[in-house]
């Protein structure tokens, strides 16, 4: 077992990392299952530095009832092709309409927004995602792998039908699955996976439905593991101007879009 590495902490973009508003082009649409799809959007210019956990705020032009932008995590980045990948779950009008865009359509994006998960070195890291919560974990696992960490990702889904896109994680570490119906991997919730009992970790990074993240937080607390969660509060601007997206922390209301979306659970009132 590696020595516990707890010196890393949540990263904030530096002043020189400017936010941008740019028009991207939809270059690929991949339907994963009836609920999830992946969009590849391409910029005309080289992409700026993007950290794992950061998100974009996308304008939805093809739906009358959508007024504000929609925040989406950055699922993956291809600097060579200037492509950002988004992993989207259909929830309401906005996400539904994003799934109806046609190749070649213009996508207006404000990015990169928010902070980054910690990137420790040579640590044992556990990534737990549920549903579309997996979105930021792929790009994160890449960073963690490159920094010499051991990466274990658990994806929790309802059934094998939803266990999509796993291959992408393989280059960066171990990928495990839990399904609620037992149709793939272990049966149960991701926090019930045997690996949590059988192995010990330095970091737990999670994203997904709040109940799942709270279960991860409870596991981390009990095992004294550093735990970072990514929150999904409703947002109007995404860059700190409106104060709509606050979460109640031990230091008062903090904006999820600028002081998050990644928080150390110790700072939350969970």
């Amino acid at each position, binding site marked *: 077992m590696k020595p516990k590495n707890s010196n890393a902490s949540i990263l904030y973009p530096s002043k020189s990392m400017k936010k941008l508003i740019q028009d991207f082009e939809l270059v690929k649409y991949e339907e994963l299952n009836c609920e999830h799809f992946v969009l590849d959007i391409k910029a005309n210019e080289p992409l700026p530095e993007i950290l794992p956990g950061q998100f974009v705020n996308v304008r939805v032009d093809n739906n009358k009832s959508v007024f*504000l932008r929609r925040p989406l995590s950055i699922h993956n980045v291809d600097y060579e092709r200037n492509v950002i990948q988004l992993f989207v779950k259909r929830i309401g009008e906005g996400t539904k309409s994003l799934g109806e865009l046609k190749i070649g359509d213009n996508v207006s994006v404000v990015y990169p927004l928010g902070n980054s998960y910690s990137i420790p070195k040579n640590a044992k890291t556990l990534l737990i995602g549920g549903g579309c919560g997996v979105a930021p974990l792929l790009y994160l696992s890449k960073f963690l792998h490159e920094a010499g960490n051991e990466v274990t990702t658990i994806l929790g889904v309802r059934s094998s039908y939803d266990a999509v896109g796993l291959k992408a994680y393989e280059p960066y570490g171990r990928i495990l699955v839990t399904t609620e119906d037992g149709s793939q991997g272990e049966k149960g919730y991701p926090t019930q996976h045997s690996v949590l009992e059988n192995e010990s970790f330095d970091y737990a990074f999670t994203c997904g439905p709040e109940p799942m993240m709270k279960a991860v937080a409870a596991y981390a607390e009990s095992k004294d593991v550093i735990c970072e969660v990514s929150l999904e*509060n409703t947002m109007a601007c995404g860059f700190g101007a409106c104060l709509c997206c606050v979460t109640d922390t031990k230091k008062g209301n903090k904006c999820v879009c600028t002081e998050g979306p990644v928080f150390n659970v110790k700072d939350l009132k969970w």
Partner: protein
Amino acid sequence: MVNLEVKLKDMVLKNPVMTASGTFGFGEEFADFIDLSDLGGIIVKGTTRHHREGNPYPRMAETPSGMLNAVGLQNKGVENFCKDIYPRIKDYQTNVMVNVSGSVIGDYVETAAMINDLDHIPGIELNISCPNVKEGGMAFGTSCASAKEVVRAVRKVYKKHLMVKLSPNVTDIASIAKAVEGQGADSVSLINTLLGMAIDAETRKPLLSTVTGGLSGPAVKPVALRMVWQVAQAVNIPVVGLGGIMNAKDAIEFILAGATAVQIGTANFIDPQVSVKIVEGIKEYMIRHQVSDINDLIGAINLK
């Protein structure tokens, strides 16, 4: 070249485009996107005498062509503003005004007095119309008597440009505008948000922690434009128009209705560059219509 300069009493704006309080942070949030010195002015966050945590989450709900907010004046208080924030923003090459809010008259007065001492703040916008605070706030803006009272008290201690922001949630906004003009307001701005509400039919819960909140965005534009027109006819001080302005065409409409300047609010969330685009768009409109001075458009609606 066209002249875009307008004056709000003694305050000179290089162009009529300002940004609305609560939608533009302290300006800093937009520095990556635009050059703040391209704006006629910016109005920073609602500032109160004391630190306020604001309302609990959720504070926002999307509505047809608009949004509801219930931020509730979250801010660190005026002392923090003077000490921490003012030094950071005082050198912006534009008019930086502070939106002053309160729940009792004494708070308004003390806050205004402290800001009066800041050299690079040419004016305040007195917010007597915030629908998102339990005590005071909007209540001051909904009767002539209370509007008068707070403006009179602040006028005594505040010596620079005093803009008063009016509430649209009233039967007769023109009479309230006249009342504050009578107490020495240098200009009025309108509209603040319309009180609204949203419910999630699936969960049966209100979408805002405060149940009701303030409606903004293009949905309110026709109401805002009507009120600006009514107020511009009723008072002799300059009127600053806002409510749902998304582009230069909208801004021109407010100016034609009688606004000397406009403020851009919710639109900043959707396009953080929209304010400077509107400056450009106004210029283009003037060239296309052969108007050399923006002041010739103020109130220039053609009623036949």
